[in-house]
């Protein structure tokens, strides 16, 4: 959260927390025990570091303190239950405890945690919540806020997922080679959901969404650093960066939504767009294309275009056509319709839009507003206003609603002008 009270120390413990937690989960085999232990260690750090100074290796400090907490908890449990499993764990924790905090060990710990949290045996929304919780250090309250779900509901979703991990024994390990393609896909879907929720999703208050977008970029870059040879991981990281780089253009000074054609491109972070494009170039050179690389290419083309009119629409149309083969969704088709309209005119765009299955998109405000814009360009003002009414009926939040209302009244006004 962009709470001014949260100091750099807290920021640091939060980000180190993911690495520390990953190690603790390996050691304890239990996400809840690990989380509690890391939480205690963070509280301890925030109490001591301002007084004693930040240790040379904050992650190692947090790991040691968290390990000791976990040991305490497990010793108590062992005395209480004499459970065979706990005794074995305790033994491992005391003897072979990971003094090994080398990069490769931490990397494997993070990968294991990522694959566990993103296991396809868990529902996608539970995977997203767990990943945000464990790898991004977001609180249940923060996650609930972003996804517009009451906090107890989100808490239940997370605890059910943890219970399933424990009870069904979803393993904490890096999948074997033959399992990897499926499992990487499941992880990519989770990180993509975080990235998307940060930027396009309707849900939640604005600064919470911006924070989520930052976490999305961080998570995508983490994934890429953990699996540098997977071009789709690099593609997703490039996509997250290129989309996030336009953050300051998306809203005007009053915090109102500004659409791509009207955005002030000097407010974009062009260094980040260039970095995303460079990352994507390296990924594409591996010749293993996929939907995230294609989406990143679209985002980079937009980011690199000097003006909206100068956008390479021909290439964007062909990229969306490719994307429809990789991931045929109505959202992709609507995006292709917009690009076709820019390249060949509104009538051609509308023809693409007419091929979209309306039942799948009738609750999606951007489908209706896109339709309204194209109808307006064709001079069908009455139909355009009707489409904007449909859009307003499913506007997901206040700023989108205000935007649609403004646009609708513009169109209605122009419609009354004599030709």
């Amino acid at each position, binding site marked *: 959260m962009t709470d001014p009270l949260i100091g750099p120390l807290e920021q640091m413990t939060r980000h180190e927390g993911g690495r520390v937690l990953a190690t603790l989960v390996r050691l304890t085999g239990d996400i809840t025990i690990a989380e509690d232990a890391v939480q205690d260690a963070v509280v301890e750090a925030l109490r001591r570091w301002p007084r004693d100074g930040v240790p040379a290796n904050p992650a190692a400090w947090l790991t040691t303190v968290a390990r000791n907490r976990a040991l305490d908890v497990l010793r108590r449990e062992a005395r209480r239950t004499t459970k*065979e499993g706990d005794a074995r764990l305790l033994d491992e924790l005391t003897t072979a405890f990971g003094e090994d905090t080398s990069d490769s060990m931490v990397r494997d710990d993070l990968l294991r945690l990522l694959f566990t949290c993103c296991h396809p045996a868990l529902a996608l929304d539970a995977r997203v919540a767990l990943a945000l919780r464990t790898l991004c250090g977001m609180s249940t309250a923060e996650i609930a806020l972003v996804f517009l779900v009451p906090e107890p509901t989100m808490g239940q979703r997370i605890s059910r997922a943890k219970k399933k991990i424990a009870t069904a024994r979803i393993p904490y390990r890096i*999948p074997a080679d033959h*399992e990897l393609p499926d499992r990487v896909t499941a992880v990519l879907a989770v990180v993509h959901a975080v990235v998307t929720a940060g930027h396009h999703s309707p849900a939640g208050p604005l600064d919470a969404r911006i924070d989520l977008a930052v976490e999305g970029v961080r998570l995508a870059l983490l994934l890429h650093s953990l699996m540098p040879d997977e071009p789709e991981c690099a593609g997703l990281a490039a996509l997250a960066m290129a989309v996030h780089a336009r953050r300051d253009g998306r809203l005007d000074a009053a915090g109102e939504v500004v659409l791509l054609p009207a955005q002030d491109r000097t407010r974009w972070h062009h260094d980040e767009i260039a970095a995303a494009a460079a990352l994507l170039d390296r990924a594409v050179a591996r010749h293993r294309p996929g939907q995230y690389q294609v989406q990143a290419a679209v985002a980079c083309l937009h980011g690199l275009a000097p003006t909206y009119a100068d956008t390479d629409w021909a290439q964007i149309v062909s990229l969306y056509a490719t994307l429809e083969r990789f991931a045929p969704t109505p959202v992709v088709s609507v995006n292709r319709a917009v690009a076709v309209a820019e390249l060949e005119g509104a009538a051609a765009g509308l023809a693409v839009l007419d091929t979209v299955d309306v039942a799948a998109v009738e609750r999606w405000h951007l489908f209706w507003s896109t339709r309204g814009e194209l109808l307006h360009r064709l001079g069908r003002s009455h139909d355009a206003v009707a489409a904007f009414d449909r859009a307003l009926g499913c506007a997901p939040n206040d700023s989108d609603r205000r935007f649609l209302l403004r646009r609708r009244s513009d169109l209605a006004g122009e419609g009354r002008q004599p030709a």
Partner: protein
Amino acid sequence: MPRYAALIYGPEETDENTPPEVWAAIMAEYTDFGATAGAAGVIAGGEALQDTKTATTVHVKGGAKGGEVITSDGPFAETKEVLGGFYLLDCADLDEALHWAAQIPGAWHGRVEVRPVIDFSQQQ
């Protein structure tokens, strides 16, 4: 070793409307699975069930022992895909259980639901 139940669901008509040679082929697939998984020491048990026309469901009314017993014809839930049989699999973790479940012929003729079995000896 954790134990999982692999519950095999499929379309009911398989039993009646299936030509004998197709039925024989399916049985051969199960024999295959039994041999492979059996040799790996994974199978702890399992049964094939008669079709749901032979099923009877009982319910004791009142939510407590001793209530009126309601006996009804048919399976618990009338669904297109019915429970046709199950295996008990001893596997180290869910990934291993899913690996074996995906080799049960019911996984391609229908679906296989994998559920951990409660181990009462580990409960306090």
